[in-house]
């Protein structure tokens, strides 16, 4: 089955990105497809590449990047939501005169159309947190 996932809340502050991760991992290991994970609202902070939690805590951001690398899943950060929350890819950073991007590896910025399209293409949409 083909799943689309929407994540609305910031990592660490809320458990919902953790639950979404556990769901995604279980789905992939059971042989299902994750068509896309769309990060909206404060959920865009899941792609904040400067995140450096204490060493005895899980790294929510790095965990997504590793999942994307291992399973090739599409991690899309809503660009409008990201601009309001200070997440930039290299293009955006250059355009605004910053010396570096803070988008974590494996994520890409794109528009809300990616959420709608995931709703069309996937068999199920699950929304985590809010």
């Amino acid at each position: 089955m083909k799943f689309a996932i929407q994540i609305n809340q910031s990592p660490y502050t809320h458990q919902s990105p953790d639950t979404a991760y556990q769901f995604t991992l279980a789905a992939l290991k059971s042989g299902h497809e994750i068509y896309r994970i769309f990060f909206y609202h404060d959920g865009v902070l899941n792609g904040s590449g400067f995140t450096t939690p204490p060493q005895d805590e899980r790294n929510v951001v790095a965990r997504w990047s590793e999942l994307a690398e291992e399973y090739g899943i599409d991690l899309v950060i809503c660009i409008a939501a990201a601009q309001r929350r200070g997440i930039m890819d290299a293009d955006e950073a250059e355009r605004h005169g910053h010396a570096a991007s803070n988008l974590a590896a494996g994520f890409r910025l794109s528009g809300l159309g990616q959420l709608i399209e995931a709703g069309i293409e996937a068999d199920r949409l699950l929304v985590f947190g809010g």
Partner: protein
Amino acid sequence: MLHIINKSPTNSPALKQCLKRAQQGSSILLMEDAAYALISKTEASSQIKQHMNRVSFYVLEPDIKARGIGEKIISGIQRIGYNDFVKLACSQHPVQSWF
């Protein structure tokens, strides 16, 4: 269809708002802080009991364990893991998350 709730019943109206709208034959998954709704002898768990004959209730066992309430919850609830959560999402549709 599948309803998902992730908020504490004593800090959010999500459970009540969901129960009011869940149709006969639908499923409700309690996860994260919504797991507290299952503690016996509380207002939330007695509301849930009233709907058990027409709605199937599930809870994520990892959330029960994390919160130390494994011995305190009412019977008749299916305690599942993340793999079963995936199966549940496959068998039900659409999905409404109440947060």
